[in-house]
């Protein structure tokens, strides 16, 4: 079924009775070519690109809860490719390009909105680092602009230029960055994969891997044994928990990241804004809520909820740069589990167990990576070779010393 304004008009006139199920709800087959564990953004995107770009259709996505119940359902919806390091920048730029064409690809309006992402800087040293970064972005084909305080003030007059503890001196702007309606991404990919014959199986939890002679040949689930030629883990947040069932230790810690939304407000904020001297970033959703967040709580957690110190820290950051939001009220706070890797960068790789593949370690930046992560994982699964823009996301990079540490914090996951 093709979605369009015309279709809506027709359905409206005929009582909205002709809409199809967005996805089937099949019972699992005995065997597939590829099983993707995890029906979140990355898993569904992998399934979508496998079936739509690599012609691999005999695929199942196993989701332990409801479709999109992972971090695709609880993030702050920002997309951008303003990375510094050559191992990251091309990957995220590839992702941004996929975002830009997502609606056309999937015939699903996930509301990609390139409202511009601003990273504020507050000192000369920070400006130098942003110049380096902005130039890295342009050199790899992305867009970047450096704004001084005057230019920034024109764009965001509500920022506190007069009374700030850390003066706002300018910003690095990526105009093509922005926001996306996060749940719709999962639904669009699921619909597109489903249409090509991918089985999306909800409420199907993987209890273990079937490994014979060093090769993974299937999984045990609450819906029985399902076999496959290749098994692809894609459960960022729960990577540690899942992979331990295959006896694999990962360079990953699980941490809780909180996010916040305010009550609905009339438009007040056009861009995505990130504070450079505290932990705060914000955008306004199409519904009118201020969607904002900050730092992770900082301790290992699988509890999907956080504590007050971070809530206060984030709101202090918000008031520090835009004191107009004091009377906006925080409506809901929630927590998601992050795969915090040892250098802040992800993994898309084979494991040492044949037939078992791994995608994870996205830290709190997985949302923007969703299309490229799925595309590159699909590439790896279909061709057994890494996609060129993701070839450095290897599990053995720490052994070799090929660290991809954007923030320069070292093997301390809670600082990335």
């Amino acid at each position, binding site marked *: 079924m093709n979605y369009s304004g015309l279709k809506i008009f027709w359905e409206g006139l005929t009582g909205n009775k002709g809409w199809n199920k967005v996805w089937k709800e099949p019972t699992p087959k005995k065997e597939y070519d590829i099983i993707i564990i995890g029906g979140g953004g990355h898993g569904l995107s992998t399934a979508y690109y496998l079936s739509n770009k690599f012609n691999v259709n005999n695929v199942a996505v196993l989701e332990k809860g409801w479709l999109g119940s992972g971090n695709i359902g609880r993030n702050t919806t920002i997309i951008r490719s303003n990375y510094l390091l050559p191992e990251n920048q091309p990957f995220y730029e590839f992702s941004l390009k996929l975002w830009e064409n997502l609606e056309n690809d999937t015939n699903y309006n996930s509301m990609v909105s390139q409202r511009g992402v601003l990273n504020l800087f507050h000192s000369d040293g920070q400006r130098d680092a942003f110049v380096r970064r902005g130039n890295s972005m342009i050199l790899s084909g992305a867009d970047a602009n450096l704004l001084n305080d005057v230019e920034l003030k024109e764009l965001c007059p509500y920022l506190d230029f007069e009374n700030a503890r850390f003066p706002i001196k300018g910003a690095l702007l990526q105009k093509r960055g922005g926001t996306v309606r996060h749940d719709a991404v999962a639904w669009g990919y699921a619909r597109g994969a489903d249409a090509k014959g991918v089985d999306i199986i909800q409420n199907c939890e993987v209890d273990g891997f079937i490994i014979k002679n060093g090769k993974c040949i299937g999984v045990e689930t609450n819906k029985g044994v399902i076999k496959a030629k290749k098994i692809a883990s894609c459960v960022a947040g729960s990577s540690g928990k899942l992979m331990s069932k295959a006896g694999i230790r*990962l360079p990953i810690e699980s941490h809780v990241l909180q996010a916040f939304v305010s009550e609905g407000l009339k438009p007040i904020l056009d861009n995505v804004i990130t504070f450079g001297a505290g932990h705060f970033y914000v955008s306004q959703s199409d519904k009118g809520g201020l969607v904002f967040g900050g730092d992770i709580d900082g301790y290992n957690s*699988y509890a999907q909820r956080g504590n007050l110190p971070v809530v206060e820290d984030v709101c202090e950051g918000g008031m520090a740069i835009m004191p107009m939001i004091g009377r906006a009220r925080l409506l809901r706070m929630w927590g998601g589990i992050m795969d915090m890797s040892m250098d802040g960068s992800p993994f898309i790789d084979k494991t040492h167990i044949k037939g078992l593949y791994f995608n994870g370690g996205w830290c709190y930046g997985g949302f923007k990576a969703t299309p490229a992560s799925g595309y590159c994982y699909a590439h790896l699964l279909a061709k057994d070779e890494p996609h060129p823009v993701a070839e450095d996301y290897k599990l053995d990079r720490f052994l070799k010393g090929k660290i991809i540490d954007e923030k320069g914090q070292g*093997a301390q996951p809670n600082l990335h």
Partner: protein
Amino acid sequence: MIIQHPDLGPRDSSEFVYKGDAELLFRPERTENADQEIFHDYLYLRNNPAGKHRELWYHEYGDRSWLVVTRDTTNHEILKVEYVKDYIKSYKVK
């Protein structure tokens, strides 16, 4: 969260800085062969259980002690708090 400091009693977790898996206490020694793989496993492959976790917290805004906190990562319940030196002692006894 509240951490029951062995001597200072209940303290708010915001007085502490978190480091991570208490296995970091058991750093390998550099040997002739300078075994990078042993250091790699020590530094990068840490325990990350969904459940009971022994972890290092530093009382930075307090007495500067490093503590081993045993905490359930699924519900944040704290089961035990020890000084590092006491933990190492009991670990060695084991």
